[in-house]
């Protein structure tokens, strides 16, 4: 019996401001997101943030992320409890300055999303390449992090947007529902 089911999938035919799915059913145990994205921001990378149920004011999200880029220290660091965050950054997209045709590989778990007695926890990350054929370019970022949304609401809407740019044409996002029982 299927444990993973597709709730929504969208691949953008043109540059698009954000991915959003509303009216998410509450019949699953967890949500899982897989993305393959790129930003129109005119640099090498752009953070792909997540907003749940439209909440986007400071202190709505707390996160700790390991971000790796380059060949040596301080390539890895974590950002301890950011109490100023209005969006959850777990994923990334290569920007318009990156090599053509490179897209990120992103994922994000939203655990126990229908519960109303706990803050919503997310864990995920991304590999966002800059170039496929260069070395020590410091343009390939990899991150892995945890984010908590400080609300006890059932999650019905997920929006993913880049920090600065739009999602470039070809970017694709898939939202899955994951069951805990048959």
């Amino acid at each position, binding site marked *: 019996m299927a444990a993973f089911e597709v709730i929504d999938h969208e691949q953008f035919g043109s540059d698009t401001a954000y991915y959003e799915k509303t009216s998410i059913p509450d019949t699953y145990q967890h949500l899982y997101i897989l993305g393959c994205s790129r930003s129109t921001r005119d640099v090498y990378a752009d953070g792909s943030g997540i907003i749940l149920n439209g909440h986007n004011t400071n202190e709505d999200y707390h996160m700790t992320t390991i971000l790796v880029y380059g060949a040596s220290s301080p390539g890895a660091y974590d950002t301890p409890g950011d109490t100023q965050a209005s969006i959850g950054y777990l994923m990334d997209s290569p920007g318009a300055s990156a090599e053509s045709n490179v897209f990120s590989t992103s994922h994000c778990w939203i655990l126990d999303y229908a519960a109303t007695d706990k803050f919503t926890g997310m864990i995920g990350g991304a590999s966002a390449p800059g170039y496929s054929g260069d070395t020590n370019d410091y343009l390939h970022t990899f991150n*892995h992090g945890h984010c908590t949304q400080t609300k006890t609401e059932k999650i019905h809407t997920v929006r993913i947007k880049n920090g600065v740019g739009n999602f470039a044409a070809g970017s694709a996002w898939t939202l899955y529902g994951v069951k805990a029982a048959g």
Partner: protein
Amino acid sequence: MASTFEFIDDYTAGSDVSVIDFSNVTQAYEHLEIRIAARSTYTGGVSDDCRISFNRSGTLGTWDQQMAIGQYSTDTVAEIFSTYGQVWMPRLAAAGSGVAAGQRGVVIIHVNDYANTSKKASIRWYGGTVEAAQATQSKYISFGGASWSETTAISEIRIQSGSAGLKAGATVAIYGIKSS
């Protein structure tokens, strides 16, 4: 509703093998997940790289990769450029002196939008080997990602170790993840 996370193929080595190859990988899914549990035949150390490559009957291409590594009590990062058409991933258990016979390394890999010929393949992985009796390279985990120079749809997958072959019992399984 139909299943969206489906088994595609697997292989378990009945004896020591040099590589594990999959060909004619179906293009019917949106994403691939590859799961590896294996031990290298390398006798010169306690662990050995696990490597992946695509479409070896065509252009091997180059890979740019970025990873974070936890090794015993230290942590490091690495940026690697490969002209060999292979990606260096977490280390597998090896056959060096002192490594328990049952020890295996594990790796889980995602290849998103793998059949899209407008995108250069991008992968993300995590895994490693943690062997109780040893230190240093037998306690090694990493997570990272890599970008391939080619836009070719992925139809062939090779899994191998960095310095030798794969011991009998090595298993590789491939799953497909649908988007509709």
